[in-house]
């Protein structure tokens, strides 16, 4: 424990001991295991923080070449012109707990049979337990004619590619509203992180145009990849109702396959064949897949819906690999039906850590993950719906006084003021 943590802990103790309100103390294990965490994103850092506290005799190594850490749930607010890229950019070094070895390289290869991970420099790292938390790959080139470098030019936006891309997307939204025309939105057919974000940016563009008195000059079309705009039925019904009320047209079963930036034409695969739409503005959400190092390893699903894009095969309740019992996948790369949000990570990490701690301490692992996924769905500047659901698509609101299907300012407050602090606390294993 460093001085800062000591001060924090002492302050917390002083503030709350009188209330008798401490949570149950986390279980610990004295096992001297070698643990490797592949990836220093939300899941990787949160794992590192919790494991270092709950397994203080373990040798923990985290592998990631990235030095910057991005608070991705904030990209929508950057894309809305409210936050700056610096508001969502942290340093990984500030969140890696002391005593953990950080190998500042990418992962090149997973060899779970030999309990080994190879880095991009060729270094080989052995482990007893492997946590794969590499995140996912944004496959912009999976759309013919599309490239990440096109974001922020000629009416092409995409808030997913990073803070600067989100800021550039806002500038494109402003230009589109100035000039008027047709704006296209949509999502890919693959599994994706934060499936609410394509809807949020549609709502934001609509609200921005209204606030500027230019709504009649823009036509907004949402191209859903399937027969619904959102996978959770009550949310789908609500969003469809809101789109209708706000004059946002919806095309179903439209998958973006190609884009011609010069001609400003987008081609969609539909049940009736390819359809090409003209646009003045398009928000591109790329197909998302597991990183190559994962896809080229024995870790992904071998068949089923999650096999094609290389998502890691895990038991959806324990996030443990069924073929390699000492391998776990957490965060975006985990091959589970939902759960590609930071809020999901917040619930996944304690499950895998507590189970490993229990197992290495000789107890039965009993923790399970229910698929918790959360999306503060921004529906206008200052309003959001706080949507939380599980694997079954059942709405599971955390706050009984907030109706998940009503637009509320309090849900916006959680998005704009609450999430970043909670996220940073999660990275430190404290939330």
């Amino acid at each position, binding site marked *: 424990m460093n001085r800062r943590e000591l001060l924090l802990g002492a302050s917390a103790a002083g*503030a709350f001991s009188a209330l008798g309100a*401490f949570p149950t103390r986390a279980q610990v294990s004295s096992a001297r295991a070698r643990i490797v965490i592949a990836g220093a994103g939300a899941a990787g850092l949160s794992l590192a923080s919790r494991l270092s506290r709950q397994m203080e005799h373990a040798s923990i190594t985290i592998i990631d070449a990235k030095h910057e850490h991005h608070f991705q749930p904030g990209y929508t607010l950057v894309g809305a012109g409210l936050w700056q890229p610096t508001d969502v950019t942290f340093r990984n070094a500030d969140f890696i707990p002391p005593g953990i070895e950080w190998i500042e390289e990418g992962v090149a290869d997973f060899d779970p049979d030999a309990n080994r991970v190879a880095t991009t420099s060729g270094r080989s790292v052995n482990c007893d337990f492997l946590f794969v938390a590499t995140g996912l790959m944004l496959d912009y080139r999976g759309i013919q004619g599309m490239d990440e470098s096109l974001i922020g030019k000629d009416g092409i936006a995409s808030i997913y590619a990073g803070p600067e891309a989100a800021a550039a997307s806002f500038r494109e939204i402003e230009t589109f509203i100035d000039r008027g025309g047709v704006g296209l939105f949509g999502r890919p057919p693959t599994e994706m992180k934060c499936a609410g974000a394509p809807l949020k940016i549609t709502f934001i563009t609509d609200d921005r145009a209204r606030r500027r008195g230019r709504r009649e000059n823009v036509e907004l079309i949402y191209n859903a990849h399937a027969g619904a705009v959102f996978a959770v039925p009550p949310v789908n019904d609500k969003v469809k109702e809101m789109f209708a009320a706000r004059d946002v047209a919806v095309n179903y079963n439209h998958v973006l396959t190609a884009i011609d930036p010069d001609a400003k034409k987008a081609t969609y695969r539909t049940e009736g064949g390819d359809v090409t739409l003209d646009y003045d503005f398009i928000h591109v959400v790329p197909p998302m897949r597991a990183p190559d190092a994962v896809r080229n390893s024995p870790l992904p699903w071998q068949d089923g819906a999650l096999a094609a894009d290389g998502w890691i095969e895990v038991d959806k309740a324990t996030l443990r690999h069924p073929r390699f019992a000492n391998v776990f996948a957490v965060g975006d790369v985990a091959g589970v039906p939902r759960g590609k949000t930071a809020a999901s990570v917040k619930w996944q990490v304690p499950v895998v850590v507590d189970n490993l701690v229990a197992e290495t301490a000789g107890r039965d692992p009993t923790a399970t993950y229910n698929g918790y996924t959360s999306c503060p769905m921004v529906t206008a500047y*200052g309003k959001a719906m706080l949507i939380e659901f599980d694997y079954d698509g059942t709405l599971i609101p*955390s706050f009984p006084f907030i109706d998940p299907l009503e637009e509320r*300012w*309090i849900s916006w407050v959680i998005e704009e003021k609450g999430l970043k602090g909670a996220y*940073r*606390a999660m990275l*430190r294993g*404290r939330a």
Partner: protein
Amino acid sequence: MADFNPVTLYFILYESMGVWLFILAGVAILLLVGVIMMTLRLGRTGRPAKRPAMAAIAAALVVTVVFFFLVPGWTLAGIGALSGVVDYAFAALLALVPGVAAGAIVFMLAARRCTAKSMRQPVSA
């Protein structure tokens, strides 16, 4: 919601506010101590706390009402974003923070004036 225990909330607040959390906590403690001391001093000088309390409540109400309209702006939203009882209640709750602080300050100032007056004009028993 069971996950939001006080320790977790503390870390979330700390990560959100940084050192400002301690500064605000310090100010809150100072105000609380000040109100208690001035109440005791009023008691010692035999002055009733009614007038300072009324002044404090009036100040707290005014400041709370003003901040009720300002709070949405703090979240980069307009007052029109409030909809539903829960929004109004939460905005009022947030506005109460500066409201109560203002009330405490006014109470201390008014109580100080009262006690100073009784030094010059002792209340007859």
